[in-house]
């Protein structure tokens, strides 16, 4: 598919993993800004030009003027440039409600084995807790798209046995039919969880490790989870970014490094082996970075 890149960082790798899941002729309802948006735009530039990108504020298939402004994306003239339709949050919500949105792409703070998502509060919601911004559009994306791709980091505090607060629904308590019993549409599912280190799918509504990046081991991935996932019979070795993918990501989509350059470790591919070339960012700094945008 291209020349394997010699240098890339974890976030770039994760964005490329998601971009390669995107297919022509399908609709993608994508959380505003950040890695999910970078993944769909990278796919449309290079891999699946006929994939249809729909935003939380109801913009149907824009061709955003690049590079995007730092911080602000939704409702901006650059982000909604050359679209097929400008709608509203209600119009896109109703489009999703009738089943027009195939795949949702989301970021999250915390996820559990059932694919439930927390972006509201960590700790005890009724007592001591740390408050975050709420689900925004994620709840509707997770409820109404036929399938959902979730992006997060491979960290023990992010993969928890039970999220502290279900902001957006996965398989809820994991029992068969739980989503339907809660009034959610039939046939909608969490589908993939993608971190820089691994890709997960689901088996019987429980998270399953399906692929691992070549620069880490299965043991390292499992050590960064607070629960044990199911294991696929064969764990795929994930492909790292190509020079072509990085060229689009770095020179067209994210010139300022606002999405990818968040202190993520850099990996070097040298003579077939991968090595981390920088230290991981410290934990305290990581906590200050709001990753649920």
């Amino acid at each position, binding site marked *: 598919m291209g020349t394997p890149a010699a240098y890339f960082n974890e976030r770039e790798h994760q964005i490329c993993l998601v971009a390669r899941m995107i297919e022509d002729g399908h609709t993608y309802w994508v959380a505003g800004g950040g890695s999910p948006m970078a993944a769909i735009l990278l796919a449309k530039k290079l891999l699946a030009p006929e994939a249809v990108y729909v*935003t*939380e*504020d*109801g*913009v149907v298939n824009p061709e955003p*003027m690049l590079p995007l*402004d*730092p*911080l*602000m994306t*939704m*409702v*901006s*003239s*650059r982000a*909604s*440039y*050359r679209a097929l339709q*400008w*709608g*509203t*949050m*209600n119009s896109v*919500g109703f489009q999703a*409600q009738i089943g027009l949105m195939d795949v949702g792409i989301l970021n999250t703070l915390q996820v559990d084995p059932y694919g439930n998502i927390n972006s*509201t509060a960590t700790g005890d*919601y009724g007592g001591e807790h*740390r*408050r*975050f*911004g*709420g*689900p*925004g*559009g*994620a*709840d*509707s994306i997770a*409820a*109404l798209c036929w399938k959902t791709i979730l992006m997060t980091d491979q960290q023990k505090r992010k993969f928890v046995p039970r999220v502290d*607060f*279900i*902001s*957006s*629904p996965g398989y*809820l308590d994991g029992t068969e039919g*739980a*989503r*339907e*019993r*809660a*009034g*959610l*549409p039939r046939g909608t599912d969490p589908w993939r969880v993608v971190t820089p280190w691994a890709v997960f799918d689901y088996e019987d509504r429980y998270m399953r490790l399906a692929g691992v990046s070549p620069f880490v081991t299965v043991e390292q991935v499992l050590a960064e989870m607070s629960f044990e996932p199911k294991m696929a019979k064969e764990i795929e070795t994930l492909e790292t970014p190509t020079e072509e993918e990085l060229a689009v990501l770095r020179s067209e989509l994210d010139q300022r490094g606002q999405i990818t350059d968040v202190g993520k470790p850099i990996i070097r591919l040298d003579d077939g082996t991968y090595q981390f070339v920088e230290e991981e960012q410290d934990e305290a700094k990581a906590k*200050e970075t*709001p990753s649920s945008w």
Partner: protein
Amino acid sequence: MPQLKILAEGKGEYLKVDPDGYREYVRDHKQRAMVSKLMSEKEAVEKFVANGDYLVYECNYLQRGPSSLIREVIRQKKEDLWLGAKFTWVAAALLVGAGCVSKLDVGFFLFGPVVEEAIREGRVKAYEYSNVVMSNRIMAGAMGLPFIPVRSFGGTDGFQYSGAKLIEDPYTGQPITLVPALNPDVALIHAHQADIYGNARIFGTGISHVESAYASKKVIISTEEIVDTEEIKRDPARTSIPYYAVDAVVHTPFGAYPGEMQGRYASDMGHVIEVVGATMRGWIPKYLDKYVYDVASHAEMMDKVVGYERMREITGRATIKEGYSV
């Protein structure tokens, strides 16, 4: 007679639902006559925003929102507001930091120490929804209905802390989530163009500006430009909101500042970083002194604090005109 089955319900307080009461309010208060509603931001907020009101703003402080009106609400030290905090970025934090808020219906806001502390200390009570569910609730209010069924939101913990109910749908027999309609006391909406009666044009994407205008008892439109009614009549399909839903029209060039107004000016990057930083680091009082309390009006802020050079710069960066034409 068969009983309606409620399968689960949230325990969150919600704004009282009263569609007939709302109709009567509309009958008695919304001007049918074409009368000028043009007034200053000071007068509009004094007249139409009361302590204790439920307040919604369309878009937000950083994205084609009624930023100058939000600053005026803060300047007038309104209290005890209940915010419809959907898709809100920093606006909720500014209003909470200014002491204007006692309740929040959450869709999304940019978190930070100010809102977090206010919630932890019990000064502000939060109820949980999502951006789409909040927009759906306003849609129901705009339709004159008491509630709206939604296919999302069920099964979440937000449901537990909201006014939602899960019932057995009397038509399909399947479980369905209902959320209460929302008829806010006041909506703040920023428009590209309006005439003096309130016929307003808003270009580009949005959240629920048309719905908020129909759902809210008092509607304040700030507008970049006042146009003649003849101009409105030249292209009626572009009227987003008709005059009889509107209570006040405020002529406010750069009213969305520091946010972008599509087709007219880009966002002021430096200011955006300043206000986001203030939200994340708890420096809201300092921000409010500079941009709200130490100036008498939006005009004075633009003139003395922001200045011509930055207005020229953000205007120059608004290169995309398609769809936002005047």
